[in-house]
Structure formats: C-alpha cells, structure tokens
C-alpha cells in the first residue's frame, strides 16, 4: 500500500505532529531526572517490587489468554455475522473502553462480589472471587477485551471475504475456512490486538483496586504498588514506574515492526 505515488504533506502539519510526539515522550522521559540512581537497583529488587512485577506479568498473561479465548470468536462474529441484534452488542462491547475503570470495578463487584448476582451463588459453593488473584485477572480481562475485539474486528473486515468465499466454493467447511483462511489472514491484527490487551492489563488500576483489593503477593500488581509507594516512598514509586515503562516499551516493540499497530 505504501508503494503508491507519494503525495506531499502540507508543511504546517509537522509542527503539531512534533508537538504531539513531545507531549507524549517528554513526561515519560522526565521521570529519568527524578530517579535516584544509587538506590535504583535496591528499590527495584525489593521483595514488594519483585512480587508485584511477577504478579503483574502473570495476571496480564492470563488475562491476555482469556481475551483471546473470548475475544477472537466475538470479533469474528461481529465482523462477519449479519444478525440484526449484533448492532447493539457491537456498541456494548466497547463499554469498558469508555467507562472509567473504577466503574468497571463497581460493576464487577455487582456481578462477582459476595453479594453480587453471580457471586452469591459462587460464595454458597465455597468459591470466593473478590480479594483473590482471579479477581485481578477478571478485572484486567474486562478492561482489555475491547482492545482485542476492536483491532481484530477491524482486521477481519479489512481482509474482506473474497478468500473465504473461494475456500468455501472449493468445498471447505466453515470451521476449516475460519482456521485455514480467515484467521491466518488477520494474524498481524490478532497479534497487535493481543499485545494491546496485554499492555492494557499491565496498566490496569481502577477496576483492580475496586474489585480485587490490594494485598502484596495476591492482588497488589505493579500499578497498585506504585500508587501505594507514591505517598510513602516517592523514590521507589519513580523507580517502579520506570520498570513499568521499560516493560511497556518492550511489549510495544514486539509488534511495532509488523506495522500492524
């Protein structure tokens, strides 16, 4: 697509474009000036820091898997199915994207809390979700799912139905078409959607503290730890923030070269 003839950009466009870039990069880079380098290794390897980092990576990985399991079917259905009732669903799925995460946390409590719609039955069965690591994963999945669904749905639509139709006309069953044609064609979109979901999970704060609480080793992920440290130990908070930035950059560069983001 990028090999078509080049059309010149209006020059004035560069000023706001550069401004936007600076606006994003400057605050993050400024954190470097607040790091106390001498204490840095000690701060990021403290027990609380390591346990939060480990918990964050584990829960984000788990919620990404959940997002894939739930989100891929949803995205394909939304992109391909003609059913009329899908219209409202399409908008509703975007809700967690627009809602403040705290509201997401309150909503999750109403569903899965001990007094919640489903939670009270789970509680009766001896299963408690609130205050557990599972609650963290649920909160992260809730806020991250739209990222995967939106980017994958877009990819499926863009890919079009041509190859699907050809495969079907050659006798492939719907499942085979999905597995051998549709999904392979949108693999870059799927990858970037998964990475976006992972990144969003990694940064999740509001829904987690509302729904899952905050306890070292169980529910206190990196953003929750940073929030705690900010009021008690600013140096440690900055150090942990830098760790999160580094993890985020690693995650972004993993997909960025594909140009799919």
């Amino acid at each position, binding site marked *: 697509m990028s090999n078509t003839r080049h059309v010149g950009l209006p020059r004035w466009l560069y000023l706001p474009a550069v401004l936007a870039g600076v606006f994003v990069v400057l605050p993050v880079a400024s954190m470097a000036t607040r790091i106390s380098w001498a204490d840095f290794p000690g701060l990021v390897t403290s027990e609380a820091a390591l346990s939060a980092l480990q918990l964050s990576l584990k829960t984000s990985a788990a919620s990404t898997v959940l997002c894939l399991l739930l989100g891929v079917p949803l995205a394909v259905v939304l992109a391909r199915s003609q059913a009329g009732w899908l219209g409202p669903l399409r908008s509703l799925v975007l809700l967690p994207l627009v809602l403040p995460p705290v509201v997401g946390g309150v909503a999750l409590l109403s569903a899965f*809390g001990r007094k919640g719609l489903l939670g009270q039955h789970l509680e009766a069965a001896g299963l408690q979700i*609130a*205050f557990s690591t599972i609650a963290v994963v649920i909160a992260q999945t809730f806020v991250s799912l739209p990222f995967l669904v939106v980017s994958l749905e877009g990819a499926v639509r863009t890919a079009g139905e041509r190859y699907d139709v050809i495969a079907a006309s050659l006798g492939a069953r719907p499942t085979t078409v999905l597995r051998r044609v549709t999904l392979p064609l949108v693999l870059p979109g799927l990858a970037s959607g998964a990475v976006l979901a992972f990144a969003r999970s990694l940064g999740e704060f509001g829904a987690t503290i509302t729904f899952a*609480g905050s306890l070292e080793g*169980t*529910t206190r992920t990196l953003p929750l730890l940073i929030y705690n440290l*900010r*009021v*008690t130990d*600013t140096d440690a908070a900055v150090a942990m923030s830098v760790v999160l930035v580094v993890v985020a950059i690693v995650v972004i560069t993993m997909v960025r070269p594909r140009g799919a983001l």
Partner: protein
Amino acid sequence: MKRLISLGAVALLALPLAACGDDDDGGKDTLTVYAAASLTSTFEQLEKQFEKDHPDVDVKLDFDGSSSLVARITEGGGADVFASADTANMDKLVDADMADGDPVNFATNTLMIAVPPGNPAGIKGFNDLAKKGLNLVLCQPEVPCGSASQKLAEDVGVDLKPVSEYENVKQVLTAIEEGEADEGLVYVTDVTDAGDKVEGIAFDESDKAVNDYPIVAVDGGDSKLAQEWIDLVLGDGQKVLSEAGFGAPAS
C-alpha cells in the same frame, strides 16, 4: 463526515477548558483544606458554618489518607490548611518546611472493629480478628489507621492476616458496607459516621493506640483564613467533633 468528526474532536478538547472557566466563582476567596479521610463528615459540617460566617469565602475540602495528602502538599499541592490523623504524617510536613507555625492537636481517635449489621460472624473482641475463614480488611501500615492497627496487633500479640490493605480508612469501611469483607479496623468516628450500614464493636485494647489529630496552616497558603479555620476547629468545632465520636485533644 470527516469534517464532522474533527469538529467533534475540537469540541471535546474545548470542553474541559470551558469547565475550568466556570470554576472561578466570581472573585470569591478560596480556603483549601486538606484533611484526613476520617474527618470527612465533621469538616463538612464546619465548612457550612465557616461559609455562613464568611459569605465571601469558598471552602474547598479535600479528604484522603493523611500520607497521600502530605505527598501532594510537598509536591506543590495548593492547600492552606492540613489536618492529619496522626503526628507521624504531620511531622513529615514540618520536616519538609511546609508548615506555617506549630501544629496543634485538636482531637483524638481510637480504633473500633467494624462488622456488617447484625455481626453475622459473631466477633467479640480483638482476638477474633485472627479467626480463620473471615475476610479481614485493614488500612495499609503507612497510613495512620494502618499504623495504629499494626501497633495494636503487636501489643496484643495477634497475627492479623488481612485479605486487603487500603490506602484510606473509608475504603476499609466501604468493603464492609458492601459485604465483601466480614470485619475491619476503622476509627470509632467512622462507625458513628456510617450509621446503620455497619456495626461497631469496642474492645478493651483500643486505648493502646490512640491517634492524635494535629492541624496546621500550610506555608505559602492564605495564613489569615487558615488561622480562622483552625480557630473554628479548636473552638466551636470541638462540639461537632465530640458528637462524631472524637476524643478531646491530649494536652
């Protein structure tokens, strides 16, 4: 269509700016009070009284965990008065040279066990907090109610295993009100404040951790109005505080 979208985007960007403009309150003086979360209902009452006595002043109250408030002031938050729920956090402000004058104690507070109405778990005293299978919620050790909880647990010799540690006392209370937690340690005043949404259980050991509440004017703020607020808290405010369950300040 594209033009419509960009118009919408511009409108969205301009919205918060317009809201800022409305915030000016037509030249009224503003007194900004940062206060510990446990002071919420009492200070809200005092706000009404202060604004009645000073019609040209708009009091802005900001409640949060004391440590969080100190962090915001030292990072440049524009408070005129700071009321802390313990001396440790007030000392942080004084050490940062941000206090205008010496802090004065204006109340004391002790901890109480909070449980859902009817006390379904049958909690009777501090030792019951260590019962297995119950969801215990506490303040995190860095905030006053958390450090008081920790001190009590050590003094009594009970090993507390919370399911969650929150950054201010109101979050602890909320977890119990919502029924997610079975028990928690909050201030006596929070139990009074919550009405019939929670039940309080007093325990003998509570006098082992008494929090002093100091108040001070913040350096760089409106010192005249700040002093008038402090005078109100130390004067007429004492009645409001004692009605809410606060103890008299330790002399």
